[in-house]
């Protein structure tokens, strides 16, 4: 029996997880592995799957996936700086005013930043247009720390948002920050936390955007901040 399907190389298979025909943002790292490393990873993952079923323990699968992601990202060196600024804290956190900023793509229901001028963009469309996002200026969403969880939305074409859709706190720990304030670990919080889509133009971020964000936080007397990339 003849097979009319075109032949696909193993390398093409692994590349297809990076915004290709099999796009899967939890496995896009496969495209950064050598064919040998990718094949070894998959072989071990299959073996771990059977053990996990037999042992009723998914921890082994999680560790295997983590090892693959570590390997895939270990050689990503986009920006290289010899040194950087450092602002030494001279007061305890319990006396400071904090905020939270993440690149997780969260926003308030009804306040969609409408990236690329698109109203109601879906997660799938954001993934398809990831390379358009990378040319754009980022937009900052302001999100009250006291927001109800069902009013909090997320959309980001650069990472697998499934966990964030179940519980925003996995990448936008707004409720945890409130707990720290209640416990006295930190003194106070700004009324709003902040989020943006980190997949954006770095040039526009540096030259057109960050000065305005700094001004916004300075006006609120922010001393320190927790930041979460995804």
């Amino acid at each position, binding site marked *: 029996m003849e097979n009319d399907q075109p032949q696909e190389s193993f390398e093409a298979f692994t590349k297809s997880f990076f915004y290709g025909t099999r796009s899967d*943002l*939890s496995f896009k*790292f496969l495209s950064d592995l050598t064919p040998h490393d990718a094949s070894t990873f998959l072989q071990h993952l299959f073996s771990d799957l059977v053990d996990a079923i037999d042992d009723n323990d998914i921890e082994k699968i*999680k560790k295997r*996936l*983590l090892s693959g*992601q570590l390997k895939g*990202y*270990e*050689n*990503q*060196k*986009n*920006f*290289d*700086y010899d040194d*950087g*600024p*450092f*602002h*030494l804290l001279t007061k*305890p*956190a319990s006396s400071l005013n904090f905020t939270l*900023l993440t690149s997780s793509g969260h926003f308030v229901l009804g306040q969609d930043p409408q990236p690329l001028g698109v109203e109601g963009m879906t997660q799938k469309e954001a993934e398809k247009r990831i390379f358009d996002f990378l040319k754009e200026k980022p937009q900052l969403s302001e999100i009250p720390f006291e927001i109800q969880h069902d009013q909090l939305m997320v959309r980001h074409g650069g*990472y*697998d*948002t*499934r*966990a*964030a859709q*179940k*519980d925003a*706190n*996995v*990448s936008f*720990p707004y*409720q*945890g*920050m409130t*707990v*720290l304030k209640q416990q006295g*670990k*930190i003194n106070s919080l700004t009324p709003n936390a902040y989020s*943006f889509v*980190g997949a954006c133009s*770095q040039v526009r971020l*540096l030259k057109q955007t*960050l000065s305005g*964000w*700094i001004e916004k936080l*300075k006006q609120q007397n*922010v*001393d*320190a*901040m*927790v*930041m*979460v*990339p*995804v």
Partner: protein
Amino acid sequence: MSVGHAAREFEAAGIATVIIAVKSFETRMKMMSLPRVLLTPHLLGRPMGNPFDETGRISILNRAIDLLETAKNNGTIVDY
């Protein structure tokens, strides 16, 4: 990268920062010479851990605040 660039600019403006990132981003974080980074052993997209693990994420946040208070130099990167 975006959070790294933002952290550098905020820090230069006198706002102290601590980044919580997955361990997979370690190389990126090191290359960007960032003030303070706490690396968590979680999967991409879940730097604070699994959904609804409130105890875990409070523990991570506490460690991050401790790092904020104790770091003395740029480039302080520690594992959670």
